[in-house]
Each structure stands twice: as C-alpha cells, then as structure tokens.
C-alpha cells in the first residue's frame, strides 16, 4: 500500500503538489528574475537580458562606495554577532534559572524589540544617539543592532535550556566543577545548535538591517543604505548584482542553519 493511497485518491495529491509548486514559484520568482538580471551585459535592467556577462559584478567589486558599504556592514555584523550571543545567552540563563515570578515579565521586555515597529525603535534610538552625540558611529550602530538581534538569541537559547537536563550540571559540580566550568564544559556544548542558530540569526539581521540604521547615519553608509540611496536616483544593474551577492551570503548562512538543524535533530547524542 503506497503512502499516497493512504491519504486518499491520487487526484487531490497531484492538486496539492501543483498548489505548492505555484506558491513556491510566486515566492521565489522575483528573486530568480533579479539574479538573472544581475548577469546582464547591458547598461540597463531588462528581463530577459539580451546578453549575459559579469560586467556589473566587476563594477560593484571595484567601486569604492560599494566596497566601503559592504565592509561597514560586515564589520558591524561581525562585532554584533558575538556580543549578541554572549548577552543573549546570559539573559536566557537568567530567565531560565532566575526567580520564576519575574520570568514572564522580563521575557516580554527582552523580546519586545522584536515585535515593536522598527521605525518607532529607530526614532527613539535616533533621539538618544543625538543626545549622547554618538550618531553616525559604531557606538550607535552596535547597541542599536543588538536591541533587535538579542531577542533571537534569547528565544533560541531559552528554548534549548528549557529541555536541558539540569542534573547534568549538578553532576559536573559534584565532580569538582564550579558553576562556571559546569556551564562551559557541559551546558554550552549541549545547547550548541541553539547558539549557532542565534549567531546566524544575529549576523543576518544585523547585515540586513535598514530602518533603524537609516535613522542613525549621516555620512556613513551600510550596504542596505547604500543600495537604497543608489536606487533613489538611478536604477542600474549594479543594484541587481549587489542584491545577488547579499542574497548569496544570506542563503549560504540559512542553508548552514538548516543543515545544522538536520544534523543535530538526527543526532542521538543530543537529547
């Protein structure tokens, strides 16, 4: 007996496949068109392009403006990611191990920046940055990005800690490890998949962040801001090339995340 028969006749099953294919196509079509357009050899965007080449990639990777903005975005994301992981993990531990009465309230506060309209958050951070005279600098970008990346770490690590068997830490402590080393040698390696997920989320969100950063910059431009301001006065295929590059980075990291998920969920070692 085949699995299809199990769910009923073949016709609805085929229909389901068709619907799913259509949905996927509509979701991904804009991206596919963008990627194809980025390989145009012409000086304008068109679909399908009359001829193909890597002309616009060359242009992007030799343009000082693009390289500066890519470098700024990567630098911010590279600083934000470890900070976000450390602070988010510490917060997740505090929520998991701290007084139960405070847990719900504190967790809501921690996660609020994730659901707040970013434009409101951006406005607030903008006023603050002006007051402290740190706008248009790392001192403003990094805390601003952290407010929206930390919740992702708190959620992924927090969920992992909920299923973590605390007697493992107690076993380590009875064997001579203090609280810190028990967490370091036992807890952290076991919740590693959650740490990796939180780290990748932090990186992607920071790298991709536009609205809040837009409030905080004056002369400096992160990659999303550079893309936006380029689009303001011209639509050149270089935008498609940059978008494809960004897409590639994000897709690579997401793929890593998904692959890790598969590896760990199939791993009998991790409970």
């Amino acid at each position, binding site marked *: 007996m085949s699995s299809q028969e199990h769910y009923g006749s073949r016709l609805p099953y085929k229909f389901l496949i068709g619907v799913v294919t259509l949905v996927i196509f509509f979701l991904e079509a804009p991206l596919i068109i963008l990627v194809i357009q980025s390989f145009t050899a012409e000086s304008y965007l068109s679909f399908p392009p009359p001829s193909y080449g890597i002309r616009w990639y060359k242009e992007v990777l030799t343009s000082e403006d693009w390289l500066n903005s890519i470098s700024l975005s990567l630098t911010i994301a590279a600083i934000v990611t470890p900070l976000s992981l450390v602070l988010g993990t510490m917060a997740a531990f505090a929520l998991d191990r701290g007084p139960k009465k405070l847990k719900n309230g504190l967790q809501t506060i921690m996660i609020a920046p994730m659901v707040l309209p970013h434009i409101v958050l951006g406005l607030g951070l903008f006023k603050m940055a002006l007051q402290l005279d740190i706008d248009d600098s790392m001192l403003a970008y990094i805390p601003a990005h952290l407010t929206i990346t930390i919740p992702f770490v708190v959620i992924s690590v927090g969920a992992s800690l909920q299923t973590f*068997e605390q*007697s*493992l830490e*107690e*076993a*380590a*402590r*009875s*064997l*001579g*490890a*203090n609280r810190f*080393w*028990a967490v370091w*040698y*036992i807890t952290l*390696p*076991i919740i590693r998949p959650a740490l990796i997920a939180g780290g990748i989320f932090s990186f992607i969100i920071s790298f991709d962040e536009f609205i809040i950063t837009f409030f905080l910059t004056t002369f400096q431009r992160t990659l999303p801001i550079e893309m936006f301001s380029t689009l303001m006065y011209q639509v050149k295929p270089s935008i498609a090339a940059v978008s494809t590059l960004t897409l590639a980075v994000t897709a690579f990291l997401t793929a890593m995340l998904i692959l890790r998920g598969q590896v760990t969920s199939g791993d*009998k*070692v*991790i*409970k």
Partner: protein
Amino acid sequence: MSSVELKSIVKKYGEVTAVASIDLSVESGEFVTLLGPSGCGKTTTLRMVAGFIRPTSGTLSIGDVDMTGVPPHQRTVGLVFQNYALFPHMTVRKNVEFGLKMQKVLTSERGPRVQEALELVQLEALGERMPAELSGGQQQRVALARALVIRPDVLLLDEPFGALDKQLRDHMRVELRELQQKLKISTLFVTHDQDEALSMSDRIVVMSEGKVSQVGKPTEIYEKPQTRFVADFIGRSNILVGKVESKGKTINAEGLILPNKGNVVAGAEGISVMIRPECVEITQSGSKATSTSADVKGKVTASIYLGSIVQYSVQINKGPNLVVTQNNTGSENLKNLTVGDDVDVSFPDSAIYILPG
C-alpha cells in the same frame, strides 16, 4: 571516624519543613540507606550532603571536616543520579575523566585512573562509546565509575536503580553491594524500595515526613519496628490493637487472644500487636491429626496468587481479619484452599511482636 555526620539538620522552604532536625552518621566503609515514601525528605537530605541544598540550620561534616556551607565542587562526594546524568556529548572515557580534569589531576595520571575505574565496573572495552550507545545497565555503571574515579569521601546514590527493569535491578543490587564492600567506601543510598534497602544496607534510616522514624540494621527494622509507621511501611504486616487481660496473662487483640509474652503491664490498653503474614500458617480445618496449641479457627475470605507466595485474607472467628501468606511449595493442601474454606490458624509465640510506645 565518621565519613558523614549530620547534626540537627533542618531544611525549611518558607513555611514548609522538608527535613525536621535530622541526626545521622555514616561510619567509614558503612552502607547506609535512607528509606521512605516520596516526600519524606530523603532526597533533600542527600542533596544537602552533596551540597546542592543549604540546610536552614544544623551542621554537616564530611570526613570530620565541617562542610555545612561549602559548595558542591569543593566537597569530594561521588554522586550517582537516578537518570545517571551522563554527559551526552562525551565518550564514556571522557565522562569518567571529567572529575579528574576538574580536580586538576595531571594528564599522565588520568589515563590509568580512568582505566582502573572502568575495569572496576567491567566496562574497559566500551571507553570510546557514547552514552546513548549503551544499555541502561551499562550507563548505570559508567555513572558509578565516574563517581568513584575521584576517590570520594562518600558515595551518594539517589535511587540509582529506578530506571532499570526488575531483573537488571536485582543484578545491579548485588554488583553494587559487592563493589562497595570491596572498596570499603562509605555510602549513603536513597531509595523508596524496601527490598533494596533490606538487601544492601549495613544500616537503614527509615524516614517519614521529614523525620527519622527508626535507625537500625535490616533485621532490626524488619523484625523489631519501633513505630507503627515502620511496621506498616516495611513488608506486609497485620497490626492489631489490643489490651492486656486475665491479670496480665493474655492480650486480647481485636478478639484474638494471644499470650502476653512481651510482659506488658496488666491493664494496658491500646497496644499495637504486629504479626507478619508469613509467620502465620493456615491449614484446611481438621486436616491435621494433631491440632496446634492455639485453638484459632477462621474462614478464607480472599486469595491472591502471587507466584512464589499466595496471599490470603482470613477472617478469624469472633476476631480480626488477618493477612496470611503461604509459600507456594506446590503442595496440594495449599492449592485446595479457596475462598469460603474453614481453616485452622496457627503461629508461633515468637511471631507476636508488641510495638513499643
């Protein structure tokens, strides 16, 4: 020298008293069991010895050193958990080595000591396995090796056989006791299983509602329970309320007339008399040529077949209902006893035990 000594240990959680003033000692090389129903405070007591719970008052010493406020990692106790708590991301060898690493034992010394510990629990061949690849019994042994490798002052076992099936549990019981005697390691064992307690311990501490009910050797606990709780909790028992009659010669226990061998003062009332079910013998009425001295007759009101034994309820004529167990020796007589049968009931005088107090 006592390995562990608790003096007037109290643990309160707000208004709730988990442990109410416990005095307890484990002598060097002794196997002591904390036995009691769930919620009696036995696990709380063990966790105080391990250092995870700080007593509200009282003092706790390990190896004659005051450890009351010392954190767990500065005590040398070997702890085995009910769920074993093996580190899932480390091999068996790494699990066992962990304690040595934390205690900063030189790398060159660690190898032989890990090997020694694994040999002790006959797992030397499985050092490179991950815990998830082991059976329950093997995991149990790894947990034991991991606890023993640090040469603890005391071994603490928290219901270590709870997750094993019955046959394996009985096997591990023997193995653990042999190992403990071989190493002469002081051991504090927590269980709610009286069979485990009776078969393994040098001394049993029976706990109830945060207090110690009785401390004694397994035979003392079973044969001479000091409180009604202990008599009820350990094994099956008939506990009858009686009063002394006939100028102190007999005890009338709910209509069952017994000789006053315990020499309870004449006129005493409300005394508790215990008769273990296995000490009572029942035979089909009139089947024995020579009738027993005690002229007690009854009727079988229920019978439960338990394999090696058969448990009967016997309603004594003008007396109490007694639980009686008979060994299943395959005798026809036993098999023929059914509900409604009239039986002769007999038990030796030594089976009559008067609970103190």
